[in-house]
């Protein structure tokens, strides 16, 4: 009997009990759905995050106040008494031989006003090197200069999103006066369009001198320090150098933590690894449960169809004809569940792609084939025992079965 014949018998049986088939396939459906999401979304998110990190700038170090015992990125709560100051920035800027640029960062938010137009903006108080450290560029006008920092000048560089909202397309923002809080600032430059990074619109921020930001927020400290090592190989030595320079200034006390980009990438990889592990676990458990479900239903089905098996044997079915009949049915049921899972996964991926156009999500043929392969394997594994039981039935006993 050809495989086609077995398939046709399997489809007959499935047609006879569509609801049962659907319930049987549910586990496999969910499992394959999880597999599709796992490979379709997990990889996409990881790729996206790592690409974004690369886009933020390379070989970057961040110094935060507060001591962190374990390495790895975990923004400190900042409860330490010793804060970072602009003196620390100056020390690194002057004496950091392995550093290729340092910038203080003073973070805050403030109301930005132009005439009657008001909106809240994220304010970055930074140094002149900040733009290049972050792989940003100036589009119009100029960026902040050392004199702006030294002179605590009220100048601001804004992003295109703010420009669009406050000035429209035709008015030039350069030279205009805007208010941050109650202080007038002169717009000296506009950054080049960058788009979103980690969901944050890089064109929706106001960059002012770190000194002016301290005045604006009425603080003497800085939020963190951003520095760049000369190249990939000097990241580790640069961390040491920064550590020594800062410790020197504190008489040996280490009350700060240095993170490298590698630490952050490692963290991302770790989070993604965990996420993938859980998705993978859900997928495996669902497939396992799905397989057990199929096996149970098939065992019941073999019991119910004992007489049918006897009749088939009586009219000439061989041992392997019966075996294949039930095995093929298990595989078909499982693969149908797999197809439904793929379809559901494709829909969800479509939806995600619609709302997160930046995420490189997708459903590759390879993944579909893999998912269907999984379901076929589950079907075989789940079908073997019931199929053997069916094929091993004694024809006479089977025919006498009530």
């Amino acid at each position, binding site marked *: *009997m*050809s495989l086609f*014949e077995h398939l046709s*018998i399997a489809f*007959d049986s499935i047609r*006879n009990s569509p609801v049962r088939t659907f319930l049987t396939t549910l586990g496999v459906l969910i499992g394959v759905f999880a597999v599709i999401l796992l490979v379709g979304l997990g990889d996409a998110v990881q790729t996206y995050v790592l690409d974004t990190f690369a886009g933020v700038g390379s070989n970057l170090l961040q110094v935060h106040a507060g001591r962190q015992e374990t390495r790895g990125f975990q923004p400190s709560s900042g409860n330490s008494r010793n804060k970072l100051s602009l003196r620390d920035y100056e020390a690194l800027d002057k004496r950091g031989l392995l550093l290729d640029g340092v910038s203080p960062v003073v973070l805050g938010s403030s109301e930005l006003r132009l005439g009657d137009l008001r909106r809240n903006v994220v304010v970055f108080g930074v140094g002149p090197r900040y733009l290049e450290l972050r792989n940003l560029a100036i589009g119009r006008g100029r960026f902040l200069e050392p004199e702006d920092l030294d002179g605590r000048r009220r100048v601001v560089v804004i992003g295109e999103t703010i420009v669009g909202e406050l000035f429209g397309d035709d008015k030039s923002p350069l030279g205009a006066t805007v208010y941050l809080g109650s202080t007038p600032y002169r717009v000296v430059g506009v950054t080049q369009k960058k788009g979103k990074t980690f969901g944050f619109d890089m064109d929706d921020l106001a960059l002012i001198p770190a000194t002016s930001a301290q005045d604006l927020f009425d603080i003497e400290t800085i939020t963190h320090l951003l520095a760049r090592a000369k190249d990939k190989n000097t990241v580790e030595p640069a961390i040491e150098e920064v550590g020594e320079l800062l410790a020197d200034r504190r008489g040996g006390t280490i009350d700060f933590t240095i993170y490298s980009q590698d630490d952050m990438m490692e963290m991302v990889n770790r989070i993604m690894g965990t996420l993938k592990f859980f998705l993978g676990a859900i997928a495996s458990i669902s497939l396992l449960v799905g397989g057990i479900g199929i096996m149970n239903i098939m065992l019941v089905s073999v019991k119910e169809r004992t*007489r*049918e098996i*006897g*009749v*088939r*044997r*009586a*009219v*000439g*079915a*061989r*041992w*392997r*004809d019966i075996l294949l009949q039930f095995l093929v049915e298990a595989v078909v049921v499982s693969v149908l569940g797999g197809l439904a899972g793929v379809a559901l996964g494709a829909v969800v991926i479509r939806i995600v792609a619609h709302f997160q156009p930046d995420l490189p999500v997708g459903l590759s043929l390879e993944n579909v084939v893999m998912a269907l392969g999984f379901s076929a394997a589950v079907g075989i594994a789940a079908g073997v025992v019931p199929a053997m039981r069916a094929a091993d039935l004694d*024809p*006479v006993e089977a*025919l006498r079965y009530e």
Partner: protein
Amino acid sequence: MSETPVIALSGVSRVYELGAERIQALRSVDLVVQKGELLAIIGPSGSGKSTLMNVIGALDTPSGGSYQIDGQAVSGLSDDQLAQVRNQKIGFVFQSFNLLPRQSALDNVALPLRYAGYSRAERRAKSERALRRVDLGDRLGHTPEQLSGGQKQRVAIARALVTEPAILLADEPTGALDQATGKEIIELFLRLNREEGVTVVLVTHDPQVAARTRRVVTLVDGRVVEDGPPKGGS
């Protein structure tokens, strides 16, 4: 010399072992059935009639003795070969019809042909012809639940006939039918035997049915106690 018998059993026994208990369902049965014969097997309940039919039908393996079908020795055949014998040489008709539910009469009749490897078109043609032989040419698409008991048994007979087997085995084929319908089914067997020369072995409890055949084999306690033309009757 006469031609090769369809069925030739000699000294066939069948023993069931239930723990320490040994049940002798068949004891040294000798039975020869020639082509074109119509014979009835009768005997009290538990005398081994069904067991004998299962042995003849190559569904059950005897514990001893030898058995040939169409000149071919059955003992020693592999499981696959037995399946082939059942497929090609035997047509089974059961008391309880044993049709596949939800499948049309045509598909039910075509079942043995599937295992024989016929194409769809051949299966359809042969099954239609078989259904016409049992006067059901107009019920091809009906499922068992849309058929009466007598019609179901006709479908089952068509299924048994469709492979043109050497012998038709019917174990109490009227047992689940009312008297009138049972009579019709018996008439069908008689007609198939008379007009088409189909060899038939029929198990029955009904002396009137046995009387209509030309040979009656009586089993008692697993033994053939009589083998000859029907006696008396009506």
